[in-house]
């Protein structure tokens, strides 16, 4: 299954903020975490992640600091800020509303589709 570009983009910010509530992290680890959480269905590109991180940093929803990784390289770590948590809570409400709305329709749809599925099989 391919998740559409628009949907990936729309869900990126809340997903990223939510991952950062688990603790500070860096780019590569965040992408790994997204893949892991979605069972491989969500594939983030670097061109999506880094501009998003920088934008959220500019908006003050995450903050970043440079540190040295275990291998002795420069690594940029990101943390969620209180403002980011507020934003995340808002996003959560919005996504829940979308989910609830769609959920009701899915149920109706399943009833409507069942005969067709029966006919196909």
């Amino acid at each position, binding site marked *: 299954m391919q998740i559409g570009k628009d949907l990936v983009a729309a869900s990126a910010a809340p997903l990223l903020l939510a991952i950062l509530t688990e603790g500070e992290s*860096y*780019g*590569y*680890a965040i*992408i790994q975490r997204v893949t892991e959480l979605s069972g491989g269905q969500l594939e983030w*590109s*670097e*061109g*999506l992640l*880094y*501009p*998003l991180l*920088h*934008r959220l*940093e*500019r*908006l*003050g929803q995450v903050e*970043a600091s440079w540190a040295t*990784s275990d*291998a002795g*390289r*420069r*690594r*940029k770590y990101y943390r969620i800020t209180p*403002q980011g948590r507020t934003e995340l809570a808002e996003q959560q409400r919005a996504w829940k509303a979308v989910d609830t709305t769609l959920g009701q329709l899915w149920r109706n749809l399943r009833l409507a589709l069942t005969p067709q599925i029966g006919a196909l099989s």
Partner: protein
Amino acid sequence: MTDAPAPAPSGIEEQVERWRRELLARAGVAPDDVDELEDHLRGHIGALTKLGLTPDEAFLVAVQRVGSQHAIAADLAREHSGRLWKQHVSVRDSAADGSTSGLLPMLGFAAIAGLVVKFPVAYALQHDDAPFFLLVATLLLLSAVVAAFLIWQRRSPVLAAAAAVTVTLGVFALTQAFYPYVDPFHTRLLATMHIPIAVAVLLGAVYLGTQWREVDRWLDYVRFLGELFIYLVLIALGGGVLVGLTGGVFSLVGIDPRVIITEWIVPLGIGGAVIVAAWLVEAKKSVLENMAPVLAAVFTPLFTLLLLGFLGAMLVTGRIVDANRDVLIIIDLVLVVVLGLHLFSVSARRDNAPVGWSDRLQLVLVAAALILDVVVLSAMAGRIGEYGATPNKLAALGENLVLAGALAGSAWYLVAFLRGKRPFVALERWLVRSLYVIGAWAVIVILVFPPLFAFR
């Protein structure tokens, strides 16, 4: 792990190094981004070598995973438009030779702009009774040419932008042409002075095109205005030399150069310079790349010193300037300059840079201007009521209120930023919203003030 392939540091390090260099050379990519992406690349390489790939193989696969450098650079550039500005490649046409593109059309626009100024000036020079409206008309026509140029250059939506420009400039032209102004013509002068301000905000919307509603993009326009100003000053300096030499050369052969200078060189130069400067800003973004932050860094302390010195002098001598209209106007000018410098500094600031001394200095500058404003206004408070509300005084006071309000908000956001309470972008947004208010105020002075004060 003895069975792991022997690391070949030289080979892979070299390849990573080359990858870094290529990425760094791309527009919109900062050194910190390269470090961050290198860390990412090495994350992939580490995971792949653990799976049993040789470092070389791992490098190749990792580069594939990170994706094309072009795509990443474009994605980063879209987020950091300010950075892109400095590196002069636009996302939509990344042609390397953009510096000379559109030279001929630009010269056409410049010629039209020059002629638009030239004919009214020539008329005014030859007729002593030239109507004042000629000046307003020239101003509006020049604005229209600049707007047309920006629509062409920025590929703004033609119909919408042209309609907005035509309606706004048309309303200005009609009101100024038919308002029955009477002596002493204060409101007329005020309206004329405020037309450029309102037009500057209008041109911002034209410049931004479809993105005119996006607060964050307005900072690009502020940057554009700042650099436009620098180019205009440079062109004016060159123009001064040109005029001087023209005078000298023609005098040598016994021809009076005055007509050539006043009717041709100066008016054509003024009109054309605006277009040429606007074109240069866009075409040669890289030339002024480091100039904006440097200029901001040089002049912010100087103006801060000026304001502090003036405040100190007032304290020491105990003399508060005599309260009259001129004082209000001078203070307004101080606030305009401080706000301009402040806007310019803010727009020249690097994205996501940590809090630094220049941010603190901005706060000192803004605070000094505000204190000065409060001191002078309170000294004048008694006097202002005595004379009643003349249009000039009301305009100056309103101006003062708008500017001081903008700066006070700035100070508040700066403090919040310095204390880590709010991101810098909050300050940027505040300043952009202040621009809207200043534009609206200018429209009020142009359209509402004259009838309000019986066109005096």
